[in-house]
């Protein structure tokens, strides 16, 4: 009975009501994952569960039993370094207050996988041919679950686009 978070095993919480979000923030002190709305509306709490992005506020910690959770703290290969997408966010000023940022970045990392797999979206023009990876509209549609109130949208999309057109994350 353990959750693997950024490569480390943690025992499950005693209270089954505890969301994965509260488990990370309040029990483990991993506050890089943000609480925005606590109801799946804003995406600030996005983490990567077995390679797929999930809203940690709508995921009970016990549901992550035996599974791999990757949070913003575990994204870079070493602790002081930055994941290339984190660097791209800085370069394109894809952030202002920084509160939605960890969720945007986690969401984008997993989303790039979905695009590369060819998962179509609402804006995919040709479902047989699949999505065109670098198209801004594809990025926008797929990132629409991550709200930003400061209005860093253009920079976020530019950072993800650069990531898609450059090296694989």
């Amino acid at each position, binding site marked *: 009975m353990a959750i693997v978070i950024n490569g480390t095993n943690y025992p499950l919480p005693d209270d089954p009501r505890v969301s994965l979000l*509260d488990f990370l923030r309040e029990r483990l002190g991993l506050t890089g994952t*943000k609480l925005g709305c606590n109801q799946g509306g804003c995406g*600030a709490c996005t983490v990567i569960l077995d390679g797929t992005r999930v809203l940690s506020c709508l995921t009970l910690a016990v549901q992550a039993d035996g599974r791999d959770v990757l949070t913003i703290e575990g994204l870079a290969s070493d602790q002081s370094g*930055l994941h290339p997408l984190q660097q791209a966010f800085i370069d394109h*000023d894809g952030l202002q*207050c*920084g509160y939605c940022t960890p969720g945007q970045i986690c969401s984008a990392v997993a989303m790039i996988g979905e695009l590369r797999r060819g998962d179509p979206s609402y804006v995919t023009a040709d479902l047989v041919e699949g999505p065109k990876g670098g198209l*801004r509209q594809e990025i926008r549609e797929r990132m629409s679950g991550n709200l930003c*109130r400061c*209005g860093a949208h253009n920079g976020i999309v530019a950072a993800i686009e650069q990531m898609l057109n450059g090296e694989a994350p």
Partner: protein
Amino acid sequence: MSKLQNAIVGGVRTAMGYVPGNWLPGGTPDPLIERRVTLGTQQSRVDGPDKVRGAAHFAAEVPMEGLLYAACVHSTIPRGRITELDVAAAETAPGVALVMTHRNAPKMAVPPPIGLTNLKAAGNNILPVMQDAEIRWNGQTVAVVLAETQEQADLAASLIKVGYEAAVARTRFEKAKADARTPDSLMIEKNRLKKGDVAVALQAAARSVDAIYRTPWHNHTPIEPNAATIAWKGDRLTVHDATQMLNGTAGSLAKVFGIKESQVYVSSPFVGGGFGGKALWDHQILGAAAAKLAGRPVRIALSRASMVRLIGGRSPTEQRVALAAAADGRLKGLLHHGFSVKPPHSACDEAFTLTSRSLYASESFDVVQHTIDLDVLANTFMRAPGEAPGTFALESAMDELAHELGMDPIELRRRNVPDRNPVSGAPHSQSDVMLAYDLGAKRFGWDRRAAAPRSRREGEWLIGMGCATGSFPYARMPGMTVRITLDGSGHATVSSAAHEMGMGTATVQRQHTADRLGLPLESVTVTIGDTSLPFGSFAGGSSQTASLGAAINAASGKLAVELLRLAGNDTPLAGLRPAEIEFVNGGLRKIGEPSRYESFVSILKRAARDQISVTGVSSAPLEMLKFSMHSRSAIFCELLVSDVTGEVRVDRLVGCFDCGRILNPKTAASQFRGGMIMGIGMALTEEALFDERTGRVMSASIADYHVPAHLDVPDIDILWTDIPDPRTPMGARGIGEIGITGVAAAIANAAFNATGKRVRELPLTPDKFLFA
């Protein structure tokens, strides 16, 4: 605000009219306008690495031993009394440490209100907090539960039973208009403006328009909820808050709890979005009171539902704008009247008529606004208070007038832009809105616009273009204080209780300090974000950059004096007065005589000093009273409106800004875009739904209040005139709020161009195009 204030401001303005401009602050243009090294260059945020790693810590993330979690219970009636309060089940629920109601809450004073004259106050909702059984708005907190975990607190809160005796409440805007009040002043301006006779002008006009425009309640909706982590140590209070008013919050809390300001420490190094919504509301007071009763630290992080009950929003407005024009488009009369909600317990004007007093020359003016008293949570400032809804009405009306005249909307504005303030006659410090229009129109491709509505169609989509002017006044706050500490290695640390909520405060002031002191960027550190630092005014009114800029400039002057004193006689600088020297290359040198130079390191070393410290204060902003100081923008929009569903899709936005010098193009472009994106939300989707029968906000979640998502936001082109304002620190004016202004009008005007339907009520939801 009062007649007395009008008299004082009016008197100072009159006096300022006689004072030569070069006697005032900024009388001589800031030398940094010409001598820029890092200012004006693209710089990434200094806190970027922490933010992208999730390592920037926010208010609800401060760890504390023995922390209790709070949950609130809110009233479900707008007015009346609590008659029954059963907390037994909650008190015995697992993990519960305290249930606080009016029966056991400590005695607390009413918080002092935010005011332009009292920067040590940050109160928004000026009512007693949990002191009696009275209910004053629908959503008032009637109980606070503290428990060992948030889950336990939330469950226990749901077990509390409250009974009420309802009283008659005023909750209907239309009905309350009959009892509207007419305040004497708005912000620092007189409310009522009458010049000439607009009624006569309207009758005699070659062309005129006269219409009512409406905007709804808006919520700030920051992604970080309002939250605080609070602890008492004896009678000393520590609040880790999400606030854009550090010293105001500390001052207000001191008054509420009857302690000294020095006994309150407020920290807020990072704020997850503010937009006006993060000052002092009931939750910090309730959290502190509960922590006091429980004898343990408390975290009170508001749920989205609690946020709409406890954090006020932007008032709705109903505005009448009437314009009378001669055949050549020149304005003969400008009328702007209207109503907004501002109960007596609110501190904040929604001054939507201010723009109409300065933007256009008109032969006659008739401008006044009224406030409506409802039994609701106090309204508050939200990004560009006044100007955001005000420019929607005025700039829609200008578009309507251009259509009536058969004139290009930009040309109409060109014919009416004044060369000085059209009401007071005060000269502009700097203003060139038409250059913004020219640059923006070129980038946007305005010449491709078809003047006749409904001229372009692609399939189901009608395509239109529109433009509008944005506007926001310059402000600099007095009292903003910084300390500059220069150490023996020549490193400068600037500190102030200033705020970072995404503007890039530390990033830009580091550039400023580097240029001011002749240092490389690496030799400057900026420390902000808590009340142990020198006094900070608020992050509001787009004033923080100018206020900090003035304080740093003042401190640099003192630093020069102090360094000259330390340098003594055994220096190439010997005998020089401060006015004869300049900061350059990590030291001081005589202006015009480069050989007379000594470095900071050398001066401190010879004086055997590890460091020296000086403080500087932003002086009284008299320039605001002598000059007419406004930033303006030209906003362009191209959009699609579905002829089938009425859906509006913004395809392109261009904003060209006349805001003085731009200090950091990278962060500035982001702030402009951010404001414009909030403008997209205001135009198309944002509306806090208010049940007029019960006074209850219905859109009590982020799913019910629609802010723009990625797919709603197109690429946004940002340009600026970059003309320095000779009257301001660094030649810059504030840029945080102007971005939202004018955008809703530009979008509505483009929608008219696309469809031929003029929608005068925000937001522009599909029904308004289908059934209008």
